[in-house]
């Protein structure tokens, strides 16, 4: 690291030289301009620059904070780029973070300078700490500089196979960023997405599906193999990921399964609404007839999303609701009602979106929301758009049974102080009146009463609605038309006046005395009317001329003359047209004969329908649905396929051949309990849906104990299958392609220590050395070459009052902290009563740092359990002392590690080995010559013996007589290099190079004993 720093500083030095050159130009030009305003501004930034270049972190931090404040206000701070970017490798975390924020904001504008920071991130990508790797990738991929696309691509590919699920998650995020920067990378990115989709970690799932949706939403074939896994993981994915996955799965299911709605292939969604009343019954009948069998995968999706209706995240609830709406059989959709109604108590904006969705649903299926009608009652404190949505829904819900209640409620709304809302209510009343013929008359009476309301908008709206209603049944209502004619003088709203005029004209024969009089009045005020009123006046005149020309001929001509010279061309046009049509002259020809039939044709009544009628063409819950236009990037929900595509594509067999052979029986009958669930492992929990709660809680507690068990989750089934495989078939049968295999092993080994008891049976079967080929990193930690079976007594059953404990070193990198050595403890209860509350008691604060296992609630007689523990031995063989406690007793125990257990194997090339060895000479070298035992003269026995003593990795060697082994210490990561050189007469020189001057000789002693023995 120190060398790295130096090199960076060198770079920094050269940068600043460049900057000076760049700075000078703007300075001079600015000074030349000489504007007071600019110069003060410049000065201010100058002092920021000075602060950034000082060597005090606090000053730099202050400067950065001020710069961030500038950015937040939207001010331009890009000229500080060179000064800021120099601090990208700062040790101060906050400073570094702020520099990142700045860098991401301005990198696009200052591409060349931004490149200077890249090397820092590239270095951090190799950091042993997963969080640092992740944040480096995050910032690197956020720098929108096209030149670094290849670097980003490489980094993403590498991170996608990182051990840490968190880093893999970050790489999924980076995919989208790279795609938006350079869409040409699509093909490569799809490969990475495909790889990450196979990931079993809940952390990764949401992010990779997001990337899938962004990059290649049409590649539905990538989902097949992962469909069941995604369904099963869904509950444990973080909430934002759930939304994305559910939306994607909705689309997927619509392409893969047949419709659960149709019985005999006759009903589609739309025709079903017409049959609404009998709809439920029919669906049930259909089920009984067995004409439709739901695909088990379809069922799986519905079942696994249902619990999410209980989520606190409203977006999740609505996404499940839309999934049910679009995918579930009609009689099951009801489950979403209650949850949607619950959301109405949430924030105003949430209400808005939820109500919109309910409005669309309630048009098709009133029955769903009718019991909750009162939840849609309007409150005076609601915002206007909420009020109108609630009105909309109430109107849709109205039927013969509840219309009286709803109308009573509407009456109070009409009196509301919010006039816009009152007008909306009147329209709603109109809709109810047309939809439900029983109340048409009542509504009409009520609306007529409103005509005498003092508020203009209310009256106007009433007139318009009455007009529409009258059109539906004009015969009986001449008195209402008369009443409206009387009101005509008092109404000023143009729309209302126009409506009355239209009514007069349309039904002029029913009110023969009044209509000409109205026309007379209009002739008087024609010039001062609004355009829409003028048009209707012309219409009225024409109609009267045709029916009652005796009285109105002159009036009509007068109006037509006025219209001829009107300013509005629409009115002039209309006048000209009407004149030609009705006034007989030689040119008018045949058309004049039909004037009456043209103008007074019976007109169909307008249909008053909801504005939400056509919104169901969009998927519910989407932005497009909310704004009722197709938003960019909206993905259509396809229609159900007539014939279901091949179901077997979802069978997972290529990757996990063994798992299939074990599990297919349970996959078919999912409710049967499986033996493996007892271990309470996460992956199994998802798989077996009929598990008991006890298992769930136990699995929960095991999850808690390890911070990255999501990783174990990911690989558990793989490891499981892998183990099976190795036991059944010897290694030559490994058919998996090599890179995948490497990852398996990696994960297998990393998660090994937390694989539950039931699996520990297999633990000793993996003796095959792991041929890791990751050559990228010098100190790549690899899996152990050999795990000794030897276990040590921790607590004898006599001293432990029946509790016996044994420990062994599984030689895995510790999950809790990389500096810890993992220890497996098997606890056995040899008494005849259960032991409760087994846990690790208080430790000496000055002692070694340990990560304890979670307390074991109860250990039954004759039962045993294996737990894992992490101990940071600080690279010394000092024993870890602690208390092992049960409910009643405490036992002091200690773990004494052999020096060889404090290492982690490393892989490196022979070349690297020599190079490193060259650096560790002198004091760091210890060697001894021994006489080898006769059998220990070939490669394999030597490797075996060395591996037994110490957890070291084999370094491939070109020479037959020299064997090399490498590792690093767990705590400090210091290199340990072992060379065994065979000489004549079975003599051998053992050399150990390490900077740990205590450990070297100790290891040498152990090795001497092992190799020289016998």
């Amino acid at each position: 690291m120190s060398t790295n720093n130096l090199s960076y500083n060198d770079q920094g030095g050269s940068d600043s030289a460049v900057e000076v050159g760049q700075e000078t130009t703007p300075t001079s030009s600015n000074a030349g301009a000489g504007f007071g305003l600019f110069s003060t501004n410049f000065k201010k930034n100058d002092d920021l620059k000075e602060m950034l270049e000082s060597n005090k972190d606090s000053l730099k931090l202050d400067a950065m904070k001020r710069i961030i404040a500038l950015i937040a206000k939207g001010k331009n701070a890009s000229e500080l780029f060179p000064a800021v970017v120099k601090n990208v490798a700062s040790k101060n975390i906050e400073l570094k973070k702020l520099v990142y924020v700045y860098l991401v904001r301005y990198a696009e504008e200052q591409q060349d300078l931004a490149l200077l920071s890249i090397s820092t991130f590239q270095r951090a990508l190799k950091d042993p700490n997963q969080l640092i790797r992740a944040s480096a990738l995050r910032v690197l991929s956020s720098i929108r500089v096209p030149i670094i696309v290849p670097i980003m691509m490489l980094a993403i590919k590498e991170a996608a196979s990182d051990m840490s699920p968190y880093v893999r998650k970050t790489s999924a995020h980076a995919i989208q960023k790279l795609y938006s920067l350079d869409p040409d990378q699509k093909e490569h990115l799809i490969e990475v997405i495909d790889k990450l989709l196979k990931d079993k970690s809940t952390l990764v799932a949401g992010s990779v599906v997001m990337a899938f949706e962004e990059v290649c939403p049409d590649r539905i074939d990538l989902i097949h193999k992962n469909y069941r896994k995604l369904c099963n993981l869904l509950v444990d994915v973080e909430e934002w990921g759930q939304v994305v996955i559910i939306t994607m799965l909705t689309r997927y299911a619509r392409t893969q399964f047949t419709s659960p709605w149709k019985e005999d292939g006759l009903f589609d969604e739309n025709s079903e609404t017409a049959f609404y009343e009998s709809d439920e019954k029919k669906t049930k009948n259909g089920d009984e007839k067995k004409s439709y069998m739901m695909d088990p995968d379809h069922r799986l999706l519905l079942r696994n999303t249902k619990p999410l209706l209980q989520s606190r995240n409203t977006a999740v609830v609505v996404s499940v609701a839309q999934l049910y709406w679009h995918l579930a059989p009609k009689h099951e959709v009801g489950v979403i009602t209650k949850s949607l109604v619950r959301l109405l108590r949430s924030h105003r904006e949430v209400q808005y979106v939820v109500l919109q969705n309910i409005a669309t649903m309630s048009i098709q299926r009133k029955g769903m929301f009718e019991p909750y009608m009162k939840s849609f009652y309007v409150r005076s404190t609601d915002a206007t758009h909420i009020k109108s949505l609630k009105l909309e829904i109430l109107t849709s819900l109205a039927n013969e049974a509840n219309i009286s209640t709803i109308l009573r409620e509407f009456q109070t709304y009409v009196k509301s102080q919010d006039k816009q809302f009152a007008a909306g209510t009147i329209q709603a009343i109109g809709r109810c009146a047309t939809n439900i013929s029983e109340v048409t008359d009542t509504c009409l009476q009520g609306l007529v009463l409103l005509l005498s309301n003092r508020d203009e908008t209310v009256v106007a709206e009433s007139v318009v609605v009455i007009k529409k209603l009258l059109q539906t049944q004009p015969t009986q209502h001449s008195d209402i038309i008369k009443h409206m004619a009387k009101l005509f003088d008092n109404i000023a709203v143009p729309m209302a006046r126009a409506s009355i005029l239209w009514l007069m004209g349309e039904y002029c024969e029913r009110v023969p005395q009044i209509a000409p009089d109205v026309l007379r009045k209009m002739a008087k005020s024609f010039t001062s009317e609004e355009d829409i009123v003028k048009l209707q006046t012309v219409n009225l005149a024409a109609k009267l001329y045709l029916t009652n020309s005796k009285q109105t001929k002159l009036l009509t001509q007068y109006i037509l003359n006025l219209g001829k010279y009107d300013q509005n061309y629409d009115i002039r046009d209309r006048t000209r047209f009407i004149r030609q049509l009705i006034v007989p002259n030689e040119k008018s020809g045949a058309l004049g004969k039909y004037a009456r039939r043209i103008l007074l044709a019976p007109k169909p009544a307008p249909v008053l329908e909801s504005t939400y009628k056509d919104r169901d063409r969009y998927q519910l819950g989407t932005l497009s649905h909310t704004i009722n236009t197709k938003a960019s990037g909206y993905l259509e929900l396809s229609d159900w396929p007539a014939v279901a595509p091949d179901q077997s594509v979802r069978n997972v067999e290529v990757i996990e051949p063994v798992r299939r052979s074990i599990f297919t029986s349970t996959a078919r009958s999912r409710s049967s309990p499986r033996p493996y669930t007892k271990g309470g492992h996460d992956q199994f929990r998802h798989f077996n849906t009929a598990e008991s709660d006890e298992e769930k809680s136990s699995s929960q507690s095991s999850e808690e104990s390890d911070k990255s068990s999501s990783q174990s989750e990911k690989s558990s089934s793989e490891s499981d299958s892998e183990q099976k495989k190795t036991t059944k078939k010897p290694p030559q049968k490994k058919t998996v392609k090599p890179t995948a295999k490497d990852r398996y092993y990696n994960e297998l080994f990393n998660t090994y220590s937390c694989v539950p008891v039931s699996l520990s049976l297999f633990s000793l079967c993996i003796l095959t050395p792991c041929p890791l080929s990751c050559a990228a990193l010098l100190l790549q930690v690899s899996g152990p070459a050999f795990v000794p079976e030897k276990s040590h007594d921790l607590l004898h059953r006599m001293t432990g009052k029946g509790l016996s404990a044994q420990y062994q070193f599984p030689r895995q990198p510790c999950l809790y902290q990389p500096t810890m050595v993992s220890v497996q403890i098997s606890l056995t209860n040899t008494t005849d009563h259960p032991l409760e509350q087994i846990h690790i008691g208080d430790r000496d604060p000055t002692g070694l740092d340990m990560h304890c296992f979670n307390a074991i609630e109860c250990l039954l007689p004759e039962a045993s359990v294996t737990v894992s523990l992490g101990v940071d031995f600080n690279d010394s063989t000092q024993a870890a002392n602690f208390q092992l406690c049960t409910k009643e007793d405490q036992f002091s125990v200690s773990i004494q590690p052999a020096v060889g257990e404090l290492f982690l194997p490393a892989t490196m090339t022979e070349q690297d080995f020599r190079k490193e060895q060259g650096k560790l000479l002198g004091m760091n070298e210890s060697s001894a010559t021994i006489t080898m035992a006769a059998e220990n003269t070939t490669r394999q026995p030597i490797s075996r013996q060395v591996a037994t003593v110490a957890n070291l990795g084999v370094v491939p060697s070109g020479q037959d007589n020299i064997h090399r082994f490498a590792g690093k210490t767990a705590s400090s990561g210091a290199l340990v290099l072992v060379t065994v050189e065979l000489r004549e007469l079975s003599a051998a020189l053992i050399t150990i190079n390490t900077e740990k001057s205590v450990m070297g000789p100790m290891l040498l002693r152990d090795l001497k004993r092992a190799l020289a023995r016998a």
Partner: protein
Amino acid sequence: MIHSLFLVNSSGDIFLEKHWKSVVSRSVCDYFFEAQERASEPENVPPVIPTPHHYLISVLRHRIYFVAVIQSEVPPLFVIEFLHRVVDTFQDYFGVCTEAAIKDNVVVVYELLEEMLDNGFPLATESNILKELIKPPTILRTVVNTITGSTNVGEQLPTGQLSVVPWRRTGVKYTNNEAYFDVVEEIDAIIDKSGSTITAEIQGVIDACVKLTGMPDLTLSFMNPRLLDDVSFHPCVRFKRWEAERILSFIPPDGNFRLLSYHVSSQNLVAIPVYVKHNITFREGSSQGRFELTLGPKQTMGKGVEAVLVSSQLPRGVLNTNLNPTQGTYTFDPVTKLLSWDVGKINPQKLPSLKGSMSLQAGASKPDENPTINIQFKIQQSALSGLKVNRLDMYGEKYKPFKGIKYMTKAGKFQIATR
């Protein structure tokens, strides 16, 4: 997903902007300002506004608009929910979420926003994780920071993000281990002029403040869990256990959090705890109106009704009022026509009332709209639905925690129609 965020104050100034992808010019907000001008009330600005190239999704909290800029299809609730989560986080960090507080802590705000979204996709929204990353500012820490030059950014890397219990940070330690639960119920009701209930429902929450060392595993059971048939949970609650046994089993987040919220619908009859007698009349032709209001308790299970506040929007025609409260104080704003009466506690022996006259615009005809009366109140130590916690047990740690539970009923949207 979320492209940019603009914070707009009530006077229509953008006082903070943050971009997660390439920069979107703040001129995009002009569409928002247009909509804002069109709206009569601040609440009436539509939450989703389409513009030619972007979509604006906004929420209004504490008189600040949080305007998110979206470029392509995304569930609108996803954005809305996230924005509310941002506001909650600010409130959590700064105590209040005001323009001043945000401006004072602009660096912390920026750091938070940076952590909460990556490329527009939510990354860390759990307050426990965020607090590990960025420590909330306190007065003491600010002082210490200025002296020592240390920072608000956590020195240690957060591990919570990596764990399967992402809501709880590791290594929690307290000297006093305490767990408090507040059962708070809000009753929403619409009462008609004759005093009969049109609709009433209860919205309840259980808020918890848990300060326990280590990794405690809690179970909470109820005397009458059947009441809870419509619930939503914090992600920490084990759903299967609830389904099977109706017991809440969870590893709690550290600090304050909302454990669950529930809804008791209007179908289960809800007892209304207060009643209002009112007589508000305007006479035709006269410029005077009469106003009488009396409050009384009803079905409160022996608990006192406190912090009563009555407010009503009087018709526009009312010029002024001349009223006499028997207790508390009342105010009338002649501009907004808002009458509010701070009653305080209701004494069942001597019912509070507000009587007097209203003066109307001379010559104007009598107002035909009906004022609605909104009431707020609190009832301590009682949950209206009758929900009762049975017991709280802790597993996984061996100390004895101090446990406490508190019940409270509040009025939510409680309104009474007068005509």
